[in-house]
């Protein structure tokens, strides 16, 4: 492997590249999906290839291929150089990568039980058992369950003498029950919505989630939602968000706007820009005193946990919001150098055929001090909303509107009626400044978002978000007529 990689780097340098790197990636994904008792998809997927990134006269070029041969290494490297030279025809400031990166070493995701050692029969058995449990609930129309395990081996080398080898192991799974009646469609998901919860870890997490043991409850909740009261229409109230919903709120309203490439306009034509412009760094009140947000690539289970990013920068932890103050970005070598800073290791590519972009690692809301029961008891009137159903936010990440699968009325410190079709909306800094309480470590979970889209061509990243339930005041809810 190293020989092929060196060949690309040597060739790039001999053709005038001032910098080059190469990534070889071998991805093995095993996924299974069951719907209404039928195994709809049982798929083993292999993908392998390499990408060569070069800097020529201060401009980037990149090319990639599936064929791991010396001839193809040469063709792809030369093509990357040609593309880099074409980029230079419409150049901006010459790219400055800052100090060299010469990381060396190996990394392996720690797992208690390697998921690839679990037999297919046992994995399918979990899903079929969960399906059978959901089937016991009268009124559930569609039962879905899925498991996915991923092993990605990645080799990275650059012309600054970095050489790293990593093996990242991910395990994910989930169940969804959908009930239908009288023009209503209501779904409940577990452990998380949009298919599954996912972490860097092994089979031990599937055992902990106990999908079959939660299936009947999920089914019952979906059916109950059909006859639940609708979310109060267009009113302002206190909202307590479940940890799963807080995780997505962090992802959309903090994680994306702190991507420094967005701030500098790299994504303007597609994903948009950011309201967190550089003059705000260190001087902007992002949230209330209780709000502390960290970006890290070292926490256990996080989908953003690894040894080095795809520029070879070591995993690390960065404060983003400290006691409400905005203090940090997600950065690459190129963007960090524009602020005379060093990269904090956030460049990640979704596969061998994509360039690394600044992506969230694990962007987490740090736990507070509240027990959830005490927080509800401390709330006179409001709504407890959990598990995301829809999400939308503007291109500078100010105006958002989210919907959740389920809600409960809070009245005089107690949970009351179940509520369906809950939505809430707000403006990001106003919302986070209205946060007055966050639950403690007991309620804090490392949630996984395995479907984060960015870039053209499209890249789907896997990001982590630690979060616990949190309370927000004066929130507009029930935007849509019921």
């Amino acid at each position, binding site marked *: 492997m190293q020989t092929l990689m060196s060949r690309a780097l040597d060739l790039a340098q001999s053709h005038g590249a001032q910098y080059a790197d190469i990534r070889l990636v071998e991805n093995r994904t095993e996924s299974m999906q069951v719907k209404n008792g039928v195994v709809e*998809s049982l798929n*083993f997927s292999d993908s392998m290839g390499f990408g060569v990134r070069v800097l020529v006269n201060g401009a980037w070029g990149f090319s990639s291929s599936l064929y791991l041969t010396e001839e193809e290494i040469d063709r792809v490297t030369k093509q990357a150089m040609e593309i880099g030279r074409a980029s230079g*025809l419409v150049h901006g400031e010459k790219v400055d990568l800052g100090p060299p990166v010469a990381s060396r070493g190996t990394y392996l995701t720690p797992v208690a039980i390697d998921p690839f050692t679990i037999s297919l029969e046992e994995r399918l058995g979990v899903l079929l058992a969960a399906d059978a449990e959901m089937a016991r609930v009268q009124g559930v129309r569609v039962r879905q369950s899925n498991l996915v395990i991923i092993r990605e081996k990645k080799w990275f080398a650059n012309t600054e003498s970095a050489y790293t080898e990593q093996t990242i192991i991910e395990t994910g799974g989930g169940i969804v029950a959908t009930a239908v009646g009288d023009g209503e469609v209501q779904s409940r998901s577990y452990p998380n919505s949009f298919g599954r919860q996912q972490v860097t870890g092994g089979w031990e997490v599937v055992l902990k989630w106990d999908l079959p043991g939660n299936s009947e409850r999920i089914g019952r909740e979906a059916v109950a939602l059909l006859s639940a009261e609708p979310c109060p229409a267009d009113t302002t109230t206190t909202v307590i968000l479940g940890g799963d919903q807080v995780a997505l709120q962090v992802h959309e309203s903090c994680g994306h706007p702190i991507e420094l490439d967005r701030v500098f306009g790299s994504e*303007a034509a597609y994903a948009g820009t950011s309201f967190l412009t550089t003059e705000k760094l260190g001087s902007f009140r992002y949230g209330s005193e209780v709000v502390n947000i960290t970006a890290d690539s070292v926490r256990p289970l996080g989908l953003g946990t690894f040894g080095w990013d795809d520029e070879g920068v070591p995993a690390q932890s960065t404060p983003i919001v400290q006691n409400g103050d905005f203090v940090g970005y997600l950065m690459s070598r190129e963007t960090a150098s524009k602020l005379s800073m060093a990269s904090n290791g956030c460049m990640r590519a979704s596969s061998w055929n*994509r360039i690394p972009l600044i992506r969230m690692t694990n962007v987490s809301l740090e736990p507070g001090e509240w027990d959830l029961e005490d927080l509800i008891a401390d709330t006179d009137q409001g709504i407890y909303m959990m598990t995301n159903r829809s999400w939308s936010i503007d291109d500078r990440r100010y105006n958002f509107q989210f919907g959740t699968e389920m809600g409960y009325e809070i009245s005089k410190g107690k949970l009351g009626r179940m509520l369906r079709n809950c939505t809430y909306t707000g403006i990001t800094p106003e919302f986070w400044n209205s946060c007055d309480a966050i639950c403690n470590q007991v309620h804090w979970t490392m949630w996984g978002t395995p479907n984060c889209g960015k870039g053209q061509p499209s890249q789907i990243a896997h990001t982590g978000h630690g979060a616990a339930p949190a309370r927000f005041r004066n929130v507009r809810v029930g935007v*849509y007529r019921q």
Partner: protein
Amino acid sequence: MLGRKKAGDICKEVFRRAKNDPAEVLLFSEAQNLTRFANNHIHQNVAERNVTLIMRLLRGKRIGLATTNRLDAEGLDRLVERARANAEVSPEDPDYPGLPEPADYPAVQGFDQHTADYSPQDRAKAVGELCRQTLEKGLNGSGLFSTGASEIAIANTRGVFAYHVSSNADFQILVAAEDSSGREQGSGWQVSKIPVESLGQLAIKKAQDGKNPRNINSGEYTVVLTPYATEDILNMLNYYGMGAQAVLEARSWMCDRIGEKVMSDLVDIWDDGVDSAGVPTPFDFEGVPKRRVNIVEKGVVKGPVFDRITATKMGEDTTGHALPPTMRSFGPIATNLFMSSGASSAEEMIKSTKRGLYISRFWYTRLVHPRDCVITGMTRDGVFLIENGELTYPVKDLRFTQSYVEALAEVESVSNETRLLMSEFGGQATRVPGLKISKFTFTGLTV
């Protein structure tokens, strides 16, 4: 590109390893190139070559899948071994109707060598000229220019062999000023037919016209939509209800509406996989020929598109809209949508509006409620107030929360021009007009 023969040979190599097991191979091959620019210069510039094989192997009624991009002997051995292993542990699948029979496919034109060969220098030249102009005007140009070619081959052990090669090109430009932006897009399978220069000029003009936007109240407005906004309406109606699986699972907006007139007389929507006015592919991902499907006719909902599984379940014929077997849970989907043009120019639609909003584009749209296809999202890249038939001033972006079914019930007029647009998620192209809609609900403002 592999070419028809090489693609066929790879499929045969897989079947040889499958021995007597019935099997199907879906082969995707692509050579794609994409130049991306921002801040008036090229900042990302990439190329990709890949070939993916998806195998479906049957052991009686048991089905196993495997996917690989390893085309060497070892890779193909492992592909078949894994598909077979998966089939052996799978329970019997009562819904799968078996492999389809061979069929004839209409010849469609969707490949242009010039587009496939378009070079990074060609793309840089076009991008560079526009960036020079935006820079001169004190504006910020960004966007992409992609060109490439792809092949799809589908073969099965019953004798199906379908092969299609296509080219693709997409140009997107967003021009931004301090507090405004304009965006345009052109797509197709012939790069020479994309009017890059004029699209750039339109984006520049809109960014300039949109400066100093004002706040207005949210609420109900008449809207004049560009084709970009119409495309979002069609795509969302497609994802959330134009496929038979969504109807079967009672989550489609079509449920209880098939045969009913629920949209304006002016609304005709159909899917046609062989019309070269779109980006055609003559067969679906099982190798079944695509049929034209009228989805909405003069406002009447006619019905969804089918694959063989949903057609069998619902006692219908397949329309040739299967997705790859790895995406079976989603069910069939329309991939070549068209909406009919009308009689009005965009100017006439504005002129006939007493008070309303001209909307350039919707952004980050998501489903709020499935059965009415209620969508929330933002406006983006140019909103203008219309008063007494004229654009009076630009306004700040708004959030809307609106049933797209009900929106199409309120269509007053349809533009006489359509635009072909590639989907954000690739592979799907939609040809759409602009629309004037009498009632559209905006529910929030942004900063």
